[in-house]
Structures are given as C-alpha cells and as structure tokens.
C-alpha cells in the first residue's frame, strides 16, 4: 500500500511568486489498484508522479510505503519498489545498448550490480519468453541496439522492462501520447494485460479521457493541484464523458476523439 499524506509542492516562478503545483494531496493506492489520472496542463499530474518517483521533493507532507516513510529516499533507491514509463519512448531505453542489455539493466533493479555477467542463460531464456509475449518478434533480435527499434517497439520494451521486477507501483506517464492510434491501442492492451496478470498497482496519467474511462478501476482527476474527482469500482465503470466535463466546466480537459 502506497500512501501520500498532505503532499504540498510549491515552485518559485520567474518573478519570485510561489506557484502551488500540488496543494494538499491525500491519496492511498491499494495493492493491485489500477488508477488512471487525468487533469489539464498544469493541474499537477506530472508533479505528483515526480513526487512518487523521487525526482521532485515535496515542500510538505509524507510518502509512505506499507507505513514506512520514504519521503527522503533518492530516485534510484526507489527503483526497488517503483517503475516508471516515460512519455518519450527514447527516455525509457538506452539507445546505444542492445535489447538484451536494456533488459538486463531492468532485471537487476534493486539488486547489487557486481562484476559478474549481467545475465545468466536461465534469465536470458526467461527474457526471450517475455519478449515473445509482446508479439513483435523482438525475441529474435536480442543483440539489436535499441536505437534501431521504432518508437512503438521501444515503448513496448520499456513497459516490459518496467514490469520485469514486479514493482509495488508502476507509473505510466502519458506513455502512449507520442504514438500513432494503432500503436497506442496495442501498447495499452499490453500494459493492461501485464498489470492484470501480475496484479500490479499502477497509476496511468493520460490526456485522453477515453483511455482514462476505458482502462483501470479507479479514476482520479486533478485540478490546480487538488484532487477534484476520485471514483472507483461500479461508479468508475458507469462514468461518462459528460461527468468529466462537468468537473472541469468550460475548461475542456483534452482533445477527445
């Protein structure tokens, strides 16, 4: 269970004024909960994810994992329980490293990286199986540098890398935003299947309200650094586009297909 307690984040902007990016967020994410997170630009979605990932320090408040305060741990230390997929497919993989080397890096998350081989042959077989599940034929191209993959392939690979280590929380930061609609659908399906099969807790940030309604079992909407909508279960399933519009008023949230 991941808990955010009264999280505040304020930035000093150019003219010395304080901008409240997050204004008192209280949130509990149960194990296995698949949360979709929406909000207008500047609502605080990215800041919330950054607070969880440890790349932004909250000005106030605490982050608890199973009751243990981890607010002050560094981003790389959080890799033991957290995985992240970035909006830019190029960010999630090392372009100069091969598919196998990228996977080996992700597999070693939270373990000591010594002067042994990065992969055992047993691990390599396991990785090939997982790659085959993606259905992209990448299992036959282990020694191909990630640079030669398409954006869609790279993002699929990143999703696989992020879920290899069975994280306590998976952060998906607009991870299909930069892809064509067909690839978006493929990667969303792979993401959803993986999250369900492994029973992961996940937060998926999206600009596409359709995706937020179709996926996940809980929907959270942010506005000006506060949670303005938090529905789960039955209520989430029966949520309509109009309900979302009602929350944001005339401030239309995103381009909706």
């Amino acid at each position: 269970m991941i808990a955010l307690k009264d999280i505040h984040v304020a930035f000093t902007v150019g003219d010395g004024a304080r901008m409240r990016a997050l204004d008192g967020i209280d949130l509990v994410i149960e194990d296995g909960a698949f949360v979709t997170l929406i909000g207008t630009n500047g609502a605080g979605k990215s800041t919330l994810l950054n607070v969880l990932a440890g790349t932004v320090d909250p000005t106030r408040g605490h982050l608890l994992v199973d009751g243990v305060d981890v607010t002050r741990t560094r981003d790389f230390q959080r890799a033991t329980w957290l995985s992240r997929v970035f909006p830019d497919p190029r960010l999630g993989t090392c372009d100069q490293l091969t598919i196998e080397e990228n996977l080996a890096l992700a597999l070693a998350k939270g373990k000591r990286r010594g002067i042994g081989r990065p992969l055992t042959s047993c691990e390599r077989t396991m990785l090939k199986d997982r790659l085959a599940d993606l259905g992209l034929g990448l299992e036959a191209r282990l020694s191909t540098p990630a640079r030669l993959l398409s954006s869609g392939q790279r993002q699929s690979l990143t999703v696989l890398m992020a879920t290899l280590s069975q994280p306590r929380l998976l952060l998906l930061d607009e991870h299909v935003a930069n892809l064509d609609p067909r690839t978006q659908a493929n990667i969303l399906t792979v993401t959803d299947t993986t999250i369900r099969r492994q029973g992961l807790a996940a937060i998926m940030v999206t600009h596409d309200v359709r995706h937020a309604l179709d996926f996940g079992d809980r929907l959270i909407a942010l506005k000006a650094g506060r949670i303005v909508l938090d529905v789960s279960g039955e209520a989430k399933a029966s949520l309509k586009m109009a309900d979302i519009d009602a929350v944001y008023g005339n401030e239309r949230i995103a381009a909706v297909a």
Partner: protein
Amino acid sequence: MIADIALATPPVAMMALGLFLMFRVLGELDLSVDATYTNGAAVIALATLSGLSPWLGLLAAALTGALVSLLVFAIHRIGRTAYLLASLIVLTGLYSINLRVLGGATVGLIGQPSIFDSVPFAAEWVRIALLLAILAVVCAALFGFLKTAFGLSMRASGNNAVMARANGVDTRKTLLVGALLAGALYGLGGALQVQIQGYADITMGIGAIIVCVAAVFIGELFFPPEGRIGAGLAGVLVGSTLYVVILTVALRSGLPPTDLRLATASILLVAVLLSSARLRGRHLMGPLERVRRVRWSLRRAETR
C-alpha cells in the same frame, strides 16, 4: 620508424582509453589528463629514484592518478560544479604540485632500473612487446569490466542517465568508479612514457587532452560510436596509432618540432570535420563507408 611508432603508441593509447571511458562511455569531458599524465611521470620518477621497483612505481602512478580523479569528483559533487570545470581547476593546481614532486623541470633517470630490466635481453622489439603486452592486458581488463553488470550500469549512466536512475543505478557511483579508472589510466600513460624516454619532464602532459580527443575522434572514423564496447576500444587503439603515425611522419619529413602543436590541432580539426560530415550523411570516407554499410546490412540480415 615503425619501431618508433610502436614505442610511442602505448602511452598515448593508455591515456586515450581513460579519456574514452570518461568522454564516450560516461559522457563527461575530463581535462585533468594533462596534469594527471605528468603526475604519473613524476610519481614513477620519484619512486625509482627512491629505490622502489619500477613495477611498484607504475602501480603508484596509477593509484595517484586515481586519487587525482577522486579530487576532481569531490569538487564536482560537493561544489555542484560541472565535471569539466572541476577538472580544469584540478589540472591548473596540479601543475605546481607536479613541479614540486619533480623538484625541477626535468628529472633524468639514466642508469636507474626500468620495467625493461625485467625482460632477459634488451633488444628493441622486446621492449615493444612488453609495452604492447601491458596495453593488451589493460584493454582486455577494461573490455571485461565494461561487459559486467556494473560495467553495463556505467554505460547506461552515460547513455541515458534518466533511464539509468529509473532502473536503480546510482549514477554518482558509476561516474566515480569510471573517473578512478580513467585517472589510473592517465597516470599509467605518463609512467610508461617515462620508462620509454628515461626522464620525466614537467611539459610532458601539456596538450595531452587534445591528443586523447584526437585519438578518440580518429578512431571513431573507423569504428563509429554505436555503443559496441569492443569496437569502441578498438577505435581508441587505431586512433592512437594513427595519431602517432601522422605526427611521426610529419616530423620525419621536416616539420619543425616547434610546430608540433599546430600539427596536432590540424589532425584534430580534420578528424572532427570528417566525423561531422559522416554524421550529416556525407561520405568523405567513401570506400570505407561502403564497406561499413555492407557489413552492417549483413549483420542485420543475420539477426533476422
């Protein structure tokens, strides 16, 4: 002339390997090599003069080289300065310290024991073989290291720090370890040069950074920077050799030694121009580029 080239190349290659590690693997330009190279020379000179075995002298030069890098890293981390700036500060200060260690501008080691005493006979090819053997051992060790789990996390830190940290890699640690290794290699380079020429000189390291960068760039003309470690290291070796070849030929054909640095700058300029031309897709290297492309498409066909 070939013997001269074979003798002059290993020290250049040694320090160029260090710079490759910092500049190409970890993505930090490290200027400290100028002073660390001289420092390695000063340390081995001091060690042999005080009766230490020259092999221990090599070890001491490597260790103090690593220590210099530790200082650069400390300034970089504690002072939150760019690595480049930290290395510039250390490079400047270390010059004076090197002068103190040497106790003068030049220290001759004629008649002192050298690593070449370890081999049974003193023919020139034996000296060359010993130097090449040392270089081969260092290269193999570096290759093996970069292929390990830790080495992989180091390459990831330089390639994509965001991704590396998201996957639990402490990028400060990988930079520190890389810097220590690079410092040791710079020091070893200087120490080997002293063994070859028989004296240590305060001006030895001046321009070493340019020599290293030139070697790396020349190497990349033949082995493009694509992330393959074997090719990267081979590139450094080829680049160092070609750099020495070009300079030796220039000096032999009447280039006054005072114009040496102009020649070095010209070599680097040409290498940089060729490499940016290749990046823009123009093939100044014509035939070579075609060979590379064919090889590449063959490799792709294999993996299909």
